[in-house]
C-alpha cells in the first residue's frame, strides 16, 4: 500500500531534521511506543502498543534510519510483528525549508501481513493515515513544548 503526504513543522529545516533523528523524540511521537533502544548505529529496537478502537496489539520490531542526507532527506524503515500480524513501513522523508518552518513530505510503502492483512484490510489504510497523523501531531506538540536550543 502506497502512502504519502506532507506536514508542516514550525521549526527550521536543520532543527526539524535533528528532531526527526532523535530516538527519544521518535519514541514519544510514535503512537503507543514508550522508548527506542539503540541496537546499532541508526537502528533501534521498538515495542509499540497499538490501540485502535477495541483492537489492541503489541508489536515488537525495529526502527531504522537510512540514506541520510542532512538536512534534507532520509529513509525511515519501521518493521514490527505481533500476534495480529506484521507490518513493514519504508518511507522517504523529504524536508523542504519554508521560511521559519519546514514542510516534511513523506512517501512510501506499507506492507502488512498475517491476520490484519486478511481481515482488517478495510481499515488498514485509514489506520495507517491516522497513525501518521498522530505522529506529526505529537511532534508538533513536542516542538511547541521544547523551546529551540
Amino acid at each position, binding site marked *: 500500500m502506497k502512502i504519502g*503526504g506532507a506536514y508542516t513543522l514550525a521549526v527550521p529545516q536543520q532543527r526539524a531534521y535533528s528532531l526527526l533523528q532523535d530516538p527519544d523524540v521518535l519514541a514519544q511521537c510514535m503512537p503507543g511506543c514508550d522508548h527506542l533502544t539503540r541496537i546499532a548505529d541508526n537502528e533501534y529496537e521498538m515495542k509499540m502498543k497499538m490501540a*485502535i*478502537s*477495541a*483492537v*489492541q*496489539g503489541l508489536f515488537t520490531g525495529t526502527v531504522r534510519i537510512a540514506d541520510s542526507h542532512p538536512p534534507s532527506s532520509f529513509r525511515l524503515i519501521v518493521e514490527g510483528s505481533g*500476534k*495480529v500480524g506484521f507490518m513493514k513501513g519504508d518511507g522517504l522523508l523529504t524536508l523542504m525549508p519554508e521560511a521559519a518552518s519546514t514542510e516534511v513530505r513523506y512517501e512510501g510503502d506499507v506492507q502488512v501481513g498475517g*491476520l*490484519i492483512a486478511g*481481515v*482488517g*484490510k*478495510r*481499515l488498514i*489504510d*485509514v*489506520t495507517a*493515515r*491516522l497513525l501518521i*497523523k498522530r505522529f506529526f501531531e505529537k511532534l508538533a506538540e513536542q516542538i511547541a513544548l521544547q523551546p529551540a536550543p
Partner: protein
Amino acid sequence: MISQSFEYSAPRTLAEALALLAGGDAKVLAGGMSLIPMMKLRLAAPGRLVDLSRVPGLTGIREQGGALHIGAMTTHYEVESSAVLRAKCPLLAETASAIGDVQVRNMGTIGGSAAHADPAADYPAALLAVEAKVTLARKGGERTLAFSDFLIDTFTTALEPGEILTGVIVPVEPAGAGVSYQKMLQPASGFAIVGVAARVHNGSVRIGVTGLSGKAFRAAAAEKIFAETRDVQKAAAAVPLGVEANSDIHASADYRRHVAAVYAARALNAALSRAS
C-alpha cells in the same frame, strides 16, 4: 476463530456498570456487532465485557423539550421502525434502515455505532446532519457533547476510559424540512463505500458524509455553496474537494470522491423534493 477468555458482567444499574468499567481492560458490550467479530478474530481481547443490555434507562425514545432522547442501547431496528422518529427525525430512521442486514439491525445499537466511530458507519453522517448531541456518563457525573465534537477521528471519540455513552439527542425537525440518506454499499460487508445524509430547511442545507475519509464530516463548503447559489450540482461537486479520500480494494480514492459528489447530489435532490 474463537476469542480469548474474558470475564462477563451484566450489571443492573448504570453506577454498577461504571464501577465495573473502572478497573483493568474492560469494554462495554452493546449489540456486539462490531466488538464480537473482532474478539473472535482475536484482534481484540478485552479482559472483561460489561454488557449494558440489562441496565435500565438506556433504551427507548422519548420526546422532551423539542428534542428526542434516544437511549444508547436502542437498536437500529427500533430507530428504523419508531413512529416518533419517522415523524420527527426521519433522517435518523432512514439511515438506520440502511445499516447492514436484518440480523445486524436487530442487535446493533445507536450508542455502539456512535462509540465505535467506524469510518464507514452510516449513523455518523446523519447525526452530523441533524446536529445531534450525545450524553456521556462517568462515575459521579454526566456531560453532553455535540456529536461533531464527540467524533474525533478514525475509531476515535471523546469517550474517556471508563465513560459510557448513555444516549443520543436529536432535535425535532421543524415542519417543512426535507431529508435523505443515500448510500453506496460495499457489496461484501454492506458498509458504506460512501454515504451522504442531507437535510434542507428554509433553503439552507446540512450535509453529513461518511465512508469517504477517515471520519465522517460535515461538508461545510458544499453547504455554503448551496446557501449562496441553490445549485445542487455545484454544491455536490464541492463535497469531496480537499478531502483525503479512503482507498481500498473496493473503491479507489478517486472513485470514492466521484461517488461522494454523485450521492450528495442525489441526497440533496431527494431532500429538496421532500421539503416544502
